[in-house]
């Protein structure tokens, strides 16, 4: 294991810790039980700096850690797979835009980086996570409640993810350029 790999490895670990802490700061409690927090933000930031592979690994491990730290939400085996590893790993796919972010950061073209990397990256990660939760809801309800408009139920029930995503997008726009100025991702590039 090289030093660079080790740094990435530790960054993933500390990202998970920050994710748990930010996730516990509930900014807004939704009436139906979901809560809005910035828990996704660390994985999004790491994915945009380090690429999709690191992002997906951090996301999947975050799902695993979430199971240990908070009371798990398990009502069905398929629902469990989709709501934990798959949904959280999907957030890491924000890293698909990391090349674009790094090239913008190199020239300090912040608004270009925000428009071409941060916004599409966060949107991709968050929408894929939302999709995983919605599909998990459909699987669950289709098994228990035949003949109901299951897609609608699931889409509404999971909508809190989208609100969280909007907040994360705003926060990522603030955090990433500031972070890049102090700790550039370029010189420790993976």
């Amino acid at each position, binding site marked *: 294991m090289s030093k660079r790999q080790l740094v990435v490895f530790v960054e993933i670990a500390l990202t998970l810790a920050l994710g748990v802490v930010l996730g516990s700061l509930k900014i807004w409690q939704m009436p139906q039980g979901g809560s809005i927090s910035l828990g996704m933000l660390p994985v999004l930031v790491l994915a945009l700096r380090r690429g999709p592979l690191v992002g997906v690994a951090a996301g999947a491990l975050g799902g695993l850690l979430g199971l240990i*730290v908070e009371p798990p939400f398990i009502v069905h085996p398929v629902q469990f797979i989709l709501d934990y590893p798959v949904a959280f790993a999907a957030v890491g796919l924000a890293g698909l835009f990391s090349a674009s972010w790094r090239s913008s950061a190199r020239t300090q073209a912040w608004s270009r980086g925000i428009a071409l990397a941060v916004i599409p990256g966060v949107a991709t990660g968050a929408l894929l996570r939302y999709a995983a939760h919605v599909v998990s809801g459909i699987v669950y309800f289709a098994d228990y409640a035949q003949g109901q408009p299951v897609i609608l139920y699931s889409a509404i029930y999971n909508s809190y993810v989208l609100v969280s995503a909007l907040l994360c997008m705003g926060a990522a726009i*603030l955090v990433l350029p500031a972070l890049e100025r102090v700790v550039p991702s370029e010189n420790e590039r993976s």
Partner: protein
Amino acid sequence: MKVPVTFGQYVPVDSPVHSLDAKAKMGLVAAFTAALFLVDGPLGMVAAAAVVAAAVVLSRVPWRIALRGIRAVVMILMITLAAHALRWNPATVALVRVGPLAVDAAGLKEGLFFVVRIVLLVVGTSLLTLTTSPVALTDGLERIMRPLARVRFPASEVAMMLTIALRFIPTTAQEAEKLIVAQTARGARFDAGGPIARARAYAPVLVPLFVNLFRRADDLATAMEARCYRGGVGRTRLHESRMRPRDWAVLCLGTLVLALVGITL
């Protein structure tokens, strides 16, 4: 605005369930989940409920804490029950009828079956995290994932990352708390206004948290390298957790009982 200092669900008391090896408990939870989905009659649910109740009593975890997980699924439970029991303008005679809405007896019975299954699933699986310390859990996880190392899955590295994350959760929480207090002293409000105003208040807290994260990662990597950490290959442990004969006995016997319940009832 307070940052919770204690994380995790572990209830540190002394009990036979706590002293059982984490790997045995994971196996039992998997067997329990499978049995719960194989059971297809009310009698099987009663047997599964008895197993869960016995485990909770043995574990000396207070009922209030053992049942806490149900709170998160209340909405799902209500929707499940309603979807089964409620009928819109049914042709047949219903149990209770309010206008066009009716409660169907057979549907109600079916709905209750599914509700009980979810409740048992939630309480049964949460017993694992309530009675096993996070470190023991990650150790157990590493041991279970070890065969995957043959297909180049970094099992030991995954366990190491989770252990580092668990260790740094309190440190990061303290740091966040300090930053929030410092910003509050400068007049920031974290608990007033709508979601956007609240999120904006967090900006001066978030930036230093992220800067510290990436700086600390570099320091920690240097410290690990200086101590010759080079991944999982050939790493040994000071405290190796082993399955004792007692753990094997409980695992095999428990799986057998659960399999019987799942297949016959």
